[in-house]
Structure formats: C-alpha cells, structure tokens
C-alpha cells in the first residue's frame, strides 16, 4: 500500500465516520458502498465489490434500534476489505483474518463512538450555558466543533487500524491460519448469511413465504441457468 493510498483511505474513513451517525446518514458508510471504494483505491475494484457484499452480509442483521449497542460498520467494512484485498494472492483471500479484523474494528469503533458521544455531552453543556447567556450562534459553533472532532477521530482510528492490518497481513502472508478462501467459498458463506439474517429479521408469514420461494427460484435460476458463476 502506497502513502497516497493510505492517505485516501484515512480521508475516506473520516467521511464515513461522520456519515455513520453525526451527518446525513446517507449510508455511504455501509460496507456494501465502502467495499467498492476501498477496492478502487487499492487497485482491486472486483475484490472490493466482493468484500463489500460479504461484510454487508455480516452486518445485515445488526439493527441500531432503541438503546442497542452495535458495531461500527464503517470501520469494519473499511479495514476488513483492506485486509482482504491487500492479503489476496491468485484469487485466494485471507478470509478468516479479514473477518476477524472486521469484527475487532466493529467493536473498537463502537468504543470510540461512545467516547465521542460522552465528549459531545460536555460540548452540549457548554452550548446550553452560552444560549442561556443570549448567544444564539452557540449551537452552530458546538456542531462545528463536534464535526471537526468527529472527522479527526474517524481519520485517527483508520490510521491506527491500517497499521494493525499491515502488521498482521505481513505476519500471516500465505499462512493457512489466515483462513484462505476463494470467491466461491465467500459467496456461499455470504449467501447463507443474507438468507438467515433476512428470514430472522422479517419472519415468515404466508405472503412472505411466497416471496421467499420466488426468491429461491430466481437465485437458483440465475446461477444454474443464467450464467452467473
């Protein structure tokens, strides 16, 4: 990985961190979007698309509702795809290593996100005190401070993550302990994950059972007779 590629990943990580909850939530922070972007930056768009879909499948059933704690899908997608693409050789990916990185990044990112929220609490207190003193511009300034801090945190956690990924990939290069797997194996695992996650999330009433059956027919048809390999 070149310095320019690392810089691009760090910059993109800052944007993805902000999109995840502080700004807009346009979902460019989801692994399905992050994967292709990371793949393009690292010169392997196909691998990025594949790993974006795999890591999206992994995060699919995680629902940020109520007071639920949930992993940082953006950091998991970015570092997981990086570990997979940079460690790939002859179409075989270090799959277990990349998924382990995504798991650890999801947990680490959640921890950092909670620290950011606590930090925001102090900013919010200051904003309220300033508004009580008649300063109407205080909320805008508080938001600017929180966003700059968020972007810096997002960039920093990607930089640290990239160093860990680079060290681990160097140690595990070519090792069976990296859990080598080709695209077919990854499709099988991710397909099963989407199926199980989808049925768990949406349940199976009579109409949905029909939708499931139609989906199965289409999936089998596309692969068996549609030329999708």
């Amino acid at each position: 990985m070149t310095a320019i590629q690392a810089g691009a990943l760090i910059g993109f990580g800052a944007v993805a961190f902000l999109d995840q909850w502080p700004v807009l939530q346009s979902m460019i922070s989801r692994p399905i979007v992050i994967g292709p972007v990371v793949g393009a930056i690292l010169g392997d768009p196909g691998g990025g698309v594949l790993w974006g879909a795999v890591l999206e499948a992994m995060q699919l059933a995680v629902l940020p509702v109520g007071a639920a704690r949930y992993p940082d899908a953006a950091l998991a997608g970015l570092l997981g795809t990086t570990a997979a693409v940079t460690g790939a050789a002859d179409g075989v990916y270090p799959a277990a290593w990349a998924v382990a990185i995504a798991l650890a990044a999801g947990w680490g990112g959640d921890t950092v996100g909670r620290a950011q929220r606590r930090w925001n609490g102090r900013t919010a207190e200051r904003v309220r005190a300033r508004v009580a003193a008649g300063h109407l511009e205080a909320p805008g300034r508080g938001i600017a401070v929180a966003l700059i801090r968020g972007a810096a945190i997002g960039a920093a956690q990607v930089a640290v993550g990239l160093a860990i990924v680079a060290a681990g990939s160097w140690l595990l290069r070519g090792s069976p302990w990296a859990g080598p797997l080709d695209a077919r194996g990854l499709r099988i695992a991710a397909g099963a994950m989407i199926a199980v996650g989808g049925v768990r999330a949406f349940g199976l009433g009579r109409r949905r059972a029909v939708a499931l059956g139609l989906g199965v027919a289409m999936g089998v048809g596309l692969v068996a007779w549609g030329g999708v390999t």
Partner: protein
Amino acid sequence: MAERGLSHRLRKERRSVALRSTLIQAVWNYDSLQAVGFGWAILPGLERIRPDRDECAARLHEHLESFNANPYLATVAMGVTLRLEEEVARGAAGAERRLERLLRALRGSLGAIGDELFWVGWRPALGGAAAIAALASGSMWPAVVFIVAWNALAQGVRAAGVRAGFAGGAGVARVLQDPFWSRSRAAAGMVGTFAAGASLGAGAAWAAGGTSNWGGALVFLAVVALLWLGGARTGSRSRVLSPGFAFFVVVTLLGAIFHLSAGALP
C-alpha cells in the same frame, strides 16, 4: 386561502430547517441526546417568530434540554414545534404547555415508527438485496442503486417532514396514522424476504456448482444451519453469539476445509 396562507408561512425558514436537520445528530450525547442539533435546526424559524434576540434565546434554551427521535422523522417534530411556537408567541392560552406535552409524546412515536421503517425495515431489505446482487454480478451498480434508493426514501421523508408537521400542528397524529408507514414497512419486508430467498437459492446453486454436487450442497446446508443455530439474530438481542462471530466461525471452518482440500471446496 387558509391552506395557501399556511403553506406560505415560514416557507423559506422551513426549507432551511429541513436542510439543517441533516446535522441533528452532530452533537448526539447521553444527556440531551439530539437536542443541540434539534435546536440549531429550528433556529431560523424561531428567529423569524421571535425577532427579539433575548426572547429567541430563551425559547431556544427550552429546546436544548432533551430531544430524541428517528433522525429522518425528527423533521415532523420540528415542523410541529415551529407551528406551536407561533401560537406561543401570539400568547395563545396553554400553547407552551401543549407544545411541551406534544413533543414528549412525539419523541416516542417518531422513534418507534422511524426505527421500524428505516432500521428494521428498509436498511436490511435494501442492504440484503444489494449484497446478493453484488455477489452475483461482481458489479458496483448494486451499491449505487442501494444509495439512490435509500436516499430517495429517507431524505424524501426528511424533507417532507417539516411541512407535514407544520401543517398538522397539534393534530399531527393524523400524519403518524397515515397508511404510508405500515404499507412501506410491509413492502420492505417483502423485498427483504425475496432477497433472503434469492440468497438461499443462489448460495445453494453456487455450492452445488450448478451440477449434482451433493458434497457442496451439504456444505451449504451445514453453513445455513450453523448460522441459524449459532446466533445470527438481530444484533445485541442475541442471547447466544453475535451474528458477526457466528459468521467468523463459518468462514474459519470453510477456510480450513479449503486449505485441507488443497484449494477447492467440495
């Protein structure tokens, strides 16, 4: 004429509020939750309603105490707030108390409806559909379609929310009872289940290699069973394993089989 008059009131400010609502979670914290973002978003309207700076600051300070709702639907509460703030400024009897009670009730309703529609409904549905399409096609177009479809719905609801809340005012319950919410949720369920079915079919066919490869089919069935039993449930509600850890176990086992069979799954 009354409706025309309503639609023109605070028109410019309402557009500004909708735009600013994209930062409602910028200062999200465990004490006042989204309150700073909420207050900053409604500020253009408040300044128009209360030209006096001190009066405006006093009303803004009230709104900075605590607020939380689904981020896309929070604009409905912003519209309601501006409508009732007008009544408060006119000195309507009990308007301030009515606004306070209404906002408290709206937080729960907007959170529940929005979470159900967006986080439990459309995100897994569109995400699952995009993921299986990307796996099958190897193209980045499913990701592009995912982004466009999500934002057409989510940002569309966000933009329409201010006007709906402003028009509804104290009678905003009608907006929340609109069949759009339940129909949209049901549609998300159908899309998500169809994507799950397509993944099941495609996964089985990939495992079988398009032929009568019973070894591959058995591997796929074992993977599905392991994920099902191993806790591929909804996030932190899982009592057994997180979905991510169950997936890690599956990938590690497949990697071991791949390695031991000299680079080819059955």
